[in-house]
């Protein structure tokens, strides 16, 4: 029951803020709404019992990505120009709605073999670690690759944004 309430509230807020992100013309406010959206999504993770992910979500998306985005907004003094929509608004809207319809349809027609009864959500940190670094069926190699990707991205970003 509590979870249900939490879900509905969070879902409503997240959808609203996401809409605000794409609709509002003031780019800085859009970024703030994005932060809100991320926050609510973290809450949704909690309702899903993914506590670790929730924390990481806040840490990465709010602490890093949103800050980066806001920085970009401030550095590219586009705020006064705002972020208007382009000529493709209506087709984009149509596509979005169609996509949504398709996805919802797919979700509803697909017979999900959900496990019943649902086990209690217990802390996932150790579990995730074990799953990541499990030697058979684990994700050690992808982990390493992602690390290298991050390094490359960092260096690339530095090189790109460096002032010549």
């Amino acid at each position, binding site marked *: 029951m509590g979870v249900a309430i939490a879900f509905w509230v969070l879902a409503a807020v997240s959808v609203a803020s996401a809409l605000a992100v794409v609709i509002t013309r003031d780019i*800085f406010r859009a970024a703030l709404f994005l932060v809100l959206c991320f926050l609510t999504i973290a809450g949704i993770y909690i309702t899903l019992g993914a506590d670790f992910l929730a924390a990481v979500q806040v840490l990465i998306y709010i602490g890093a990505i949103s800050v980066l985005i806001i920085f970009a907004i401030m550095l590219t003094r586009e705020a006064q120009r705002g972020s208007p929509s382009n000529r493709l608004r209506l087709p984009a809207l149509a596509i979005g709605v169609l996509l949504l319809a398709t996805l919802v349809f797919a979700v509803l027609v697909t017979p999900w073999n959900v496990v019943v009864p649902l086990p209690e959500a217990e802390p996932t940190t150790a579990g995730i670690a074990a799953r990541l670094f499990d030697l058979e069926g684990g994700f050690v190699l992808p982990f390493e690759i992602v690390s290298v990707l991050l390094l490359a991205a960092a260096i690339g970003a530095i090189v790109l944004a460096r002032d010549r």
Partner: protein
Amino acid sequence: MGVWDFIYNLFPRLYELTSAALGGLPTWASYLILGLIGIVLILFFVILVVMLFVWFERRLVGRFQIRLGPNRAGPAGLFQPIADVIKLLLKESFTPSKADRWVYFLAPVVAVVPAFLIFAVVPIQGGAGGILVDLNIGILYIVAISTISVVGVFMAGWGSSNKYSLVGAMRTVAQMVSYEVPLVLSIIGVVLIAGSLSMVTIVKEQAVPFILLQPLGFLIFFLGSLAEINRSPFDLLEAESEIVAGFHTEYPGIWFAIFFLAEYGHALAVSAIVTTLFLGGWMGPGLPPYLWFFIKVLLVFSVMLWLRSTLPRFRVDQLMGFAWKYLFPLALVNIFITGFEAILWPDFPWPIILVNILVMGVLIVLWSRFFPLEEGFRLERYGIGIAKGMALTFKHLFRRPITVQYPEQRLTPSRRFRGNELVLDLGRCTGCGACVRACPLNIIHLETRRGPEKGLIVERFDVEAGRCMYCGLCVESCPVGCLFMGRSYERATYRLEELTVGMDRLTAPDRKPSAYAHPEMEKEMPEQTLLAPPKGVH
């Protein structure tokens, strides 16, 4: 059960009471109420402690600067913060006309809320009631939450549409983001040893305080968190000399108070976290655990103040360099070392302590030597300079403060002090009127009448002190030496007519004449009181 026992188990008792009270309710309702109670508790707790901290900081910094801080409002000036808060609340609250209102008003809230949220997982003592919720991701939760305040700073800087605010916000955020990296990395060392993210577990794991096992990690974490909460030497956001007051330049009264609260709340939180992660939290002999906790927190906080009153402010480029070239690599190295140790000696025998301290020293020296932030900037010669400065400020703690409790306590001026008021010795005055004639401003009014035998009796002797320029001609012209300059230095009066000084006050006994034009008087005058005591004297 004795009183001591009650004090000792204060928090568990409270917990039992509340849980008993909420026994009947459905779980979600109890959750809600518990949450609300927790919120309220934390609110009060934080605000109170912050006030305490404000007072404490001002006092301690005063001592570091050989003053005694605020000591008038209430016992030992304890009510000073309250007075400040009242002042802030009474101030006029305005908003800049160009401000983005929503953002502008939400900013302080966004900035302050995380500061409160952090305390949800800070264990002030073990067992039940010691902590609001023991998240198994406690420390991660703290790091995550504390990043949110960055957004608040941004909002403040942007919303108040003021270039200083914006620059301040940019600086702050850049600083926070850069210092977050070494901060988190240094936490990893602790987590590696403790084998858990939960704060309670971390504390319980600390048979040996982790500051000994993780000296380098402690240093990095401490500096990093100093930067996170923008305390000196990292307080660039409010470098008054450069950007007026950083991101909260445009915030009046109560809104500024909220930022203030947020800042000190963060300071408190950081102290608490450092205590928990590195100083063994509530653990300690004898005293009840929460007392231990508070003592340690206060200790950490006072170390912050110590640093603040010692070190000058970083330059902004040095700031970034310090984060990326100095703390970041050191943090990485620390992780590697800790990882190796965790693999080789899982139970961390005591020699590790020495090894780690040694390693820390070597690394600091190496980095200062080979990776200077800029040419010649060797972190004050491998931190030795810093240590010296710290020692000096520490010594100041034990010097007698030079504060003078005016008006109760006054300083005796020098014997050569010229003085700035007139003193009349009526007994000697012949009413010759030489002074009147001598006065270039004609502000001395003298009335005399014939006495019974020859000689004049002075009936009225007024001086318009308001216009007097204390040229002293009257004193010099007095043939009988009945006029003197006075030694005190109060000049302010409450009413205008008091500026015309009459005979009674001129002749008042509390008026001590100075030695002006009477050098023979110097001998019997009192010693001048010196603020800085001569060497050896305390």
